[in-house]
């Protein structure tokens, strides 16, 4: 056992105290400011992605009504929407936003291990976003090759953005990976080395476990995207043939010869599937904590939850080819990847059972964060079960290019993580801002989002069963698709517009509350984990005042029999726990 007196040496630790506005809010090395910078930038990029989705939904719901949405723009919007939402919104928000804010606070540390590197990470992330957004303004516009960027199609004339658009996308991704690696090293080393006294790994909140394992996945999976991006850039800019086969473009044979598009797909999905869990695992962790706090119960099966996170993380590296069944593969390969896909459902299902069992007989407080957390359980079960369909080769083949897939992955890694994002933001908003949000508006926001997204994605499953192909700008006239499919498409678009617009409730609530919301109690939900025990709300620079906390228990001591209150903070010593007897004595004295 190694005792490294790192986090306890708070007085000697160099804190980089900011002296000016610029140092405090721009070139800040404070993890909380960096978290807000990361989160703000991710949300801004996400809004761009959301608007793009509403635009291409206009074309699908009301074909040819908006004349500026031509086929090129449609494909560019679909592509950019996908990449923005998966990488620049969800990955950046969960790891850069929540990771930065939560890890040091939940670990009882003053900051990340490498604050300068942390600051560098957010600025490099900004650079990647600028490069990505620049592609909207270059000749030919952004790439329209689909978010998976499959060659050779992405690189050929006829695909919008095949010149500068795809180049900027690949460079932006490479820069993003540099930022994610800098941040990721920080998160992992901070969790490993900067936990305060008494805080063992098995006393960490599941939020930290989720972000920790997701960060490891990011560190080991993003290289695959980097490798494929670099090789594709070589193909485009230097004329190599890593992925580009011999091909004729507009009647002219290209110089490429013999490249393997399938190799790109393997590399892309070796990143792409862990990416699902890079988004999902932090969401699992965050929602576990929200459910436990608002159900006033310890999380059910804590150890099982930790192991499940680790198991899912490990298994996520051996399921990637289930995204490639339609590319063609040896049947034994298909069998292998179908089997591993079904196996990964086991730890995932364990987590779902444990969330439900956490609620079982809990003293549930139906606060706004709890609405979103319970809503997540619904959408995640829904999206998870359709994943079992698609994990099987024989069922995937007919459904793969249909709207069923769009419905599945939006339920499982679009709506579900976003509901957790809302749950988490509402849950921690009082600590981050020092103000309470408007509960009624937040609940209205929940119902608009939850029901609205079901109106969007439930009909999409049916469209998929009908055989309506995804990716198409216009369906044209086909015998097998009934005319009523268009009615569904129109309904979906109306619902999408409604959900999109209703997000104004969220932003307006947060912004209004920032100024006019009632002052928040330091621990309004009665939570046991460390971040709620800071001496200041919002936590000041350095988080913990003069001395770091000491941890005496796990993060889930809720409704402990005999205890005076229904939670015991992690930093309450065992012999100082207020008990019912103490409380009775106090009441007697008062009497």
């Amino acid at each position, binding site marked *: 056992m190694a*005792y490294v007196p790192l986090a306890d040496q708070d007085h000697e630790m160099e804190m980089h105290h900011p002296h000016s506005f610029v140092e405090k809010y721009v070139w800040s090395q404070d993890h909380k400011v960096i978290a807000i910078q990361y989160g703000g930038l991710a949300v801004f990029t996400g809004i761009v992605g959301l608007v793009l989705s509403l635009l291409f939904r206009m074309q699908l719901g009301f074909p040819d009504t908006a004349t500026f949405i031509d086929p090129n723009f449609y494909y560019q919007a679909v592509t950019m929407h996908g990449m923005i939402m998966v990488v620049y919104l969800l990955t950046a928000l969960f790891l850069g936003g929540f990771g930065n804010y939560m890890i040091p606070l939940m670990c009882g540390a003053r900051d990340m291990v490498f604050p300068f590197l942390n600051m560098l990470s957010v600025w490099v992330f900004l650079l990647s976003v600028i490069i990505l957004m620049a592609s909207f303004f270059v000749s030919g516009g952004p790439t329209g090759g689909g978010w998976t960027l499959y060659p050779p199609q992405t690189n050929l004339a006829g695909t919008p953005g095949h010149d500068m658009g795809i180049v900027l996308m690949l460079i932006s991704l490479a820069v993003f990976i540099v930022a994610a690696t800098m941040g990721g090293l920080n998160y992992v080393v901070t969790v490993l080395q900067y936990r305060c006294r008494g805080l063992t790994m098995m006393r960490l909140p599941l939020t930290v476990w989720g972000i920790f394992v997701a960060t490891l996945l990011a560190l080991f999976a993003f290289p695959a995207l*980097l*490798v494929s991006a670099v090789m594709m850039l070589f193909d485009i800019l230097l004329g190599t043939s890593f992925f580009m086969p011999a091909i004729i473009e507009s009647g002219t044979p290209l110089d490429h010869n013999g490249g393997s598009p399938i*190799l790109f797909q393997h590399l892309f999905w070796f990143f792409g599937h862990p990416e699902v869990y890079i988004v999902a695992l932090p969401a699992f962790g965050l929602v576990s904590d929200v459910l436990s706090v608002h159900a006033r119960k310890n999380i059910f099966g804590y150890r099982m939850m930790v192991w499940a996170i680790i198991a899912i993380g490990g298994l996520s590296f051996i399921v990637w080819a289930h995204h490639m069944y339609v590319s063609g593969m040896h049947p034994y390969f298909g069998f292998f990847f179908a089997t591993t896909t079904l196996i990964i459902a086991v730890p995932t299902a364990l987590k779902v059972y444990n969330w439900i069992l956490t609620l079982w007989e809990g003293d549930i407080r139906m606060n706004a964060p709890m609405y979103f957390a319970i809503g997540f359980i619904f959408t995640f079960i829904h999206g998870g079960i359709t994943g079992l369909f698609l994990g099987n080769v024989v069922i995937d083949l007919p459904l793969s290019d249909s709207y069923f897939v769009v419905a599945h992955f939006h339920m499982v890694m679009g709506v579900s993580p976003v509901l957790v994002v809302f749950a988490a933001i509402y849950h921690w908003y009082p600590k981050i801002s020092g103000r309470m949000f408007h509960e009624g508006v937040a609940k209205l926001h929940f119902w608009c989002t939850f029901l609205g997204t079901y109106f969007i994605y439930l009909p999409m499953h049916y469209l998929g069963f009908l055989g309506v192909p995804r990716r198409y700008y216009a369906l044209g006239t086909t015998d097998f698709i009934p005319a009523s499919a268009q009615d569904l498409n129109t309904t979906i678009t109306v619902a999408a517009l409604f959900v999109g617009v209703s997000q104004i409730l969220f932003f307006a609530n947060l912004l209004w509350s920032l100024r006019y919301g009632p002052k928040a109690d330091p621990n309004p939900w009665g939570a046991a984990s460390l971040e709620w025990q800071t001496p200041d709300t919002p936590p000041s620079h350095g988080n913990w005042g003069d001395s770091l906390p000491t941890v005496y228990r796990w993060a889930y*001591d809720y409704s402990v029999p005999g205890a005076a209150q229904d939670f015991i903070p992690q930093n309450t010593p065992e012999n100082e726990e207020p008990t019912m007897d103490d409380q009775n004595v106090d009441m007697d004295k008062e009497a």
Partner: protein
Amino acid sequence: MSIFKNVTDKPWERKGVIGGLEAEGAFESPNEKVALSIFLVVASVVFSLFTVGYILRMELPDWRPLSEPAQLWFNTALLVVSSILFQWARNITKDDGEKNVRVAFFGAGVFAILFIAGQVITWNSLQSAGYFIASNPANAFYYLMTGLHAIHLLGGLWVWSKSSITLLSGGQPKDIKLSIELCTLYWHFLLIVWLVLFALLSNT
């Protein structure tokens, strides 16, 4: 404490401070070394994926192996010497010694620079011989993988140059003890990567 030692722990049962008076880190090593070790795993993944891509791509019929110039043996020797010199510097500073540290540390960097120069000369000679990057995937992989290795080495040289400046501006070897330790680890890693790449490129 061991991370995995406690996964069987029942945290809901154990109360009180676990782990004595000090805060607990999972590893005794300095944070920088822990971070570097994780980064080396990340870099290994990058090189491994390129290697997998190389092996898969060479199965296709248009693959024409290029004949690696003999100078690569000389370049390899330069990198080996660089790594040995770093280890020498590390061994001296480990026991808080100072004698010959400057010779070893500066020498290590100089030999690494010579290695990169040697690689550039090799690239030029291959270009002159008609092995252009776009003319065959084997060529493309050669330039890509050796270039990536050189970029990693340049990153290491950036750290080396910062520490060299410290030494040149009056700093003592003990001031850069950690830097020497990290550079040594990094250089050994890059030497192993290079030996694997060299073996792969030479034998296929």
